């Protein structure tokens, strides 16, 4: 098994927010190799100035997402053999976010929108109150649970054409978070959530194209969560006029 491995042609985006182009590298193919392995190999063996971001390498931290052959993916858990086309790979920075350098994007707009979507807990009790039991089978809890495995990787955000066309749009992950908070029976300010998601950049911008749901590496369904927000905001509008 000591044969010289075959070489793959890998194009990697180099540049900053204002200018850049793809640069070609030859990378040895290996068994069970991930896209992150490829990027790391280039950085360690060909060009130490290549910039990229990762932390956990096991699909938990959400920091390694990049565009791979035009599709947003978590690179630490994407196997090369699954995405290699004609021995070619193209790796670029996530779409819809400003590029800092090479493969590292500035994720601030993504996280700022989590806050703007009111994806924060509004407590009903003080820390001294006894813990209130919640049935896992309770309908609201089931809805809330469906979105909690989000790792903030921004893959859905990069996949969304509405984000691309409207910089104010809160995007799939933030809205899904708002839906989780809305369905949490321990949350005290549902109206704040409804107000936050029904504004200019809110849930009604979504065209239900479903790219978020198709590409979410954790198999979550932000499109479904956004449809939920569309229902409750419309209902609230007809009932209370807001």
């Amino acid at each position: 098994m000591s044969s010289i491995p075959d070489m793959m042609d890998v194009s990697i985006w180099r540049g900053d927010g204002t200018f850049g182009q793809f640069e070609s590298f030859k990378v040895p193919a290996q068994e069970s190799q991930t896209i992150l392995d490829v990027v790391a190999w280039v950085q360690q063996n060909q060009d130490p100035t290549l910039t990229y971001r990762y932390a956990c390498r096991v699909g938990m931290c959400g920091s390694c997402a990049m565009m791979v052959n035009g599709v947003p993916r978590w690179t630490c858990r994407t196997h090369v053999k699954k995405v290699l086309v004609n021995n070619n790979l193209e790796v670029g920075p996530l779409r819809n976010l400003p590029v800092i350098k090479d493969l590292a994007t500035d994720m601030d707009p993504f996280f700022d929108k989590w806050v703007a979507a009111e994806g924060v807990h509004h407590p009903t009790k003080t820390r001294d109150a006894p813990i209130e039991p919640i049935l896992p089978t309770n309908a609201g809890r089931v809805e809330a649970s469906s979105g909690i495995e989000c790792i903030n990787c921004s893959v859905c955000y990069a996949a969304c054409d509405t984000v691309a066309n409207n910089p104010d749009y809160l995007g799939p992950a933030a809205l899904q978070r708002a839906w989780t908070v809305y369905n949490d029976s321990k949350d005290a300010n549902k109206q704040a959530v409804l107000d936050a998601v029904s504004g200019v950049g809110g849930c009604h911008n979504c065209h239900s194209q479903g790219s978020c749901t198709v590409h979410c590496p954790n198999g979550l369904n932000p499109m479904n969560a956004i449809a939920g927000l569309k229902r409750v905001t419309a209902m609230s509008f007809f009932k209370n006029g807001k």
Partner: protein
Amino acid sequence: MIRSHRTHTLWLAYILHRVSGLGLALFLPTHFYVLSLALTQPERLDGFLHFVEIPIVKVAEFGLVFLLAVHFFGGLRLMALEWLPWSANQKTLAAGAVAGAFLISTTFFLRAI
């Protein structure tokens, strides 16, 4: 070329719905104009109705019916998708049932006429 992040059924359904809507929007003014001829210039309407007998125009009519059907079901699909808090499986089953019923009923309808 459709960019890779868009190559999935939901996006195709979305673009079909949009394009058929645009097609219908372009067709409607012509449609109203021709209808108005019945009131304003009946002779020209007759001339136009002869033109409609040409086979290629007949084929184009099928295109129109297709646009209408696609747009109609696209709308129903979207309303079901966004307004019914069903699970994905329930929606697939319901869509299958509607499509099946549509297929069977049109077959009978076409036989009847």
